[in-house]
């Protein structure tokens, strides 16, 4: 009798697996979502050379100015960055947001040319050529965006391009509430 039950084992495991896969498909969760350990914690160290010639280097003090700050990692080679770029331009121009742009694993002359073409919404722009700062910040790629309150605590972390909905539902209310 037990030997017969043993034969059912592969079938049972197959049913179990099919059930799990079906649940994964149906539950509507985003398999690409990774979540973030940064939210609610002090922003990681910021110590970068400036992207634009003649600018001061980027330091932690920028993140603890008492005003909310948007930190956006981008690269000129990244297509989703192109899609979200006009949103940052709008946030800088219309909403007066303080945006720190960090060119990640990007040749500085290419990043500068990219900003010259598309417009430069960054009050501060840094260069993370070797990606070390990105590592500290828990970056999985570009674009990623962090909202940091005036005391230097990370409040939101967007992986992937920011959308219009993110801007109207999260970023603008965040900027208004913290100002």
């Amino acid at each position: 009798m037990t030997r017969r039950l043993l034969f059912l084992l592969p079938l049972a495991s197959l049913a179990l697996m099919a059930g799990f896969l079906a649940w994964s498909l149906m539950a509507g969760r985003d398999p690409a979502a990774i979540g973030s350990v940064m939210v609610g914690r002090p922003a990681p160290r910021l110590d970068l050379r400036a992207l634009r010639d003649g600018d001061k280097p980027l330091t932690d003090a920028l993140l603890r100015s008492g005003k909310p700050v948007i930190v956006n990692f981008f690269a000129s080679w990244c297509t989703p960055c192109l899609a979200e770029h006009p949103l940052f331009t709008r946030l800088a121009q219309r909403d007066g947001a303080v945006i720190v742009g960090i060119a990640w694993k990007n040749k500085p002359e290419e990043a500068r040319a990219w900003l010259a073409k598309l417009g430069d919404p960054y009050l501060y722009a840094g260069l993370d050529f070797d990606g070390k700062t990105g590592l500290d910040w828990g970056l999985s790629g570009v674009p990623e965006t962090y909202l940091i309150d005036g005391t230097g605590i990370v409040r939101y972390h967007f992986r992937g391009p920011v959308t219009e909905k993110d801007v109207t539902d999260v970023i603008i209310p965040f900027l208004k509430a913290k100002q």
Partner: protein
Amino acid sequence: MLEFLLALLTTATVGALLVPFLRASVTSTDRLEGELAIYRDQLDEIERERAAGSLGDADAAAARLEIERRVLAAADAAQPIASAASSLHRLLPPALALAIPLLALGVYLKIGHPGLPAAPFAEATRPPADRSIDVPRLVAEARAKAAAQPDDHDAQSALGEALTLEADGTVTPAAIAAFNKALALQPGDARALYYLGLHEAQAGDSAAALRRWRDLEAKSPAGAPYLPVLRAEIARVARAAGIPADSAMPQPTREQQEAMATLTPEQRQQAIRGMVDGLAARLKDNPQDRGGWLRLANAWKVLGEHAGAVDAYSQADALAPVDDRLLADWAEAHVRGLKPGEAPSPPAVAVLERLEKADPRNGLALFYLGAASFAAGDKKAAAARWKTLLAMLPPDAPIRGLLEQRIKEAE
């Protein structure tokens, strides 16, 4: 070649499955023999124990009897199983082993496509849409043209478009400047309006983009080549922003559009007419719907029913005076119904006079008001209007000859 190998592999697999079925007919007699061997062992055991003295004679006889009874029961049990189950057991596995590959082959021959490329491969081999255009050259040419003709709105908006293309579809600040320049030169420049709307959508103001685009859609001539793109973009942005995509004109559903596509031109015309008649009937019940009257006027105009269009425009105008652009459409509907050489009717003259007042250099108003003055006997006024018009016309305008002749008649 690959197909052949696969077929070979399948045949080999089916063969490997079939061979044991065909060779060894597994029957329940095997089982019976196994059982009998056990009972034989047990009988030997009883005999050994009796000989050793650990089992009494009477007990040994009882045990032997019990085992013999089981032997008979086992033989009885084996008989029916062998007969009832054997045919199914013997036939089902080979039948399945043959039927499944045959079924697969049949289905494949029916719906399969030999040589169908894998989907990612097919995508990779398709040439990217934009790469056929030499973008840097396009930008350089557009820039040169815009610099050479700073007053040409089309050159400006072409430059904006080239700059947008250069940025992979993102409307850049430089492109926005070019489009704004184009609009300053020509407020109705459709390309500039479209791309500025696209910029608004990209910059997170989809509502403004949709307002601009719907306005552009409403003002566009019916056959404008960019309308399909514009409508698709309206639908895309509305969907992305979660704004319902109802535009001023109810759009036919996909099914309706498909149904329309299958009709002959006459049937299609009839179907459109049916929709317009429906709108007209609705407006009879609800005559306060000014937007409805304007839609109806536009629909009649497109269908060439100028009298209907004129009536609908006047209904809308009675609710609230129409703007200059609609005034021009209204006047056009009036004069389109005229026979050559016929002077416009008094209501037409009233509309044309309003148009002339709004735009003193409107060619349509100048020409037909001239004709009206001429018919009323005021030849001086007619000649003055026509001369103004003549001065505005380009030297190669085909109407010049006719106009010059009529001026001569008036003088």
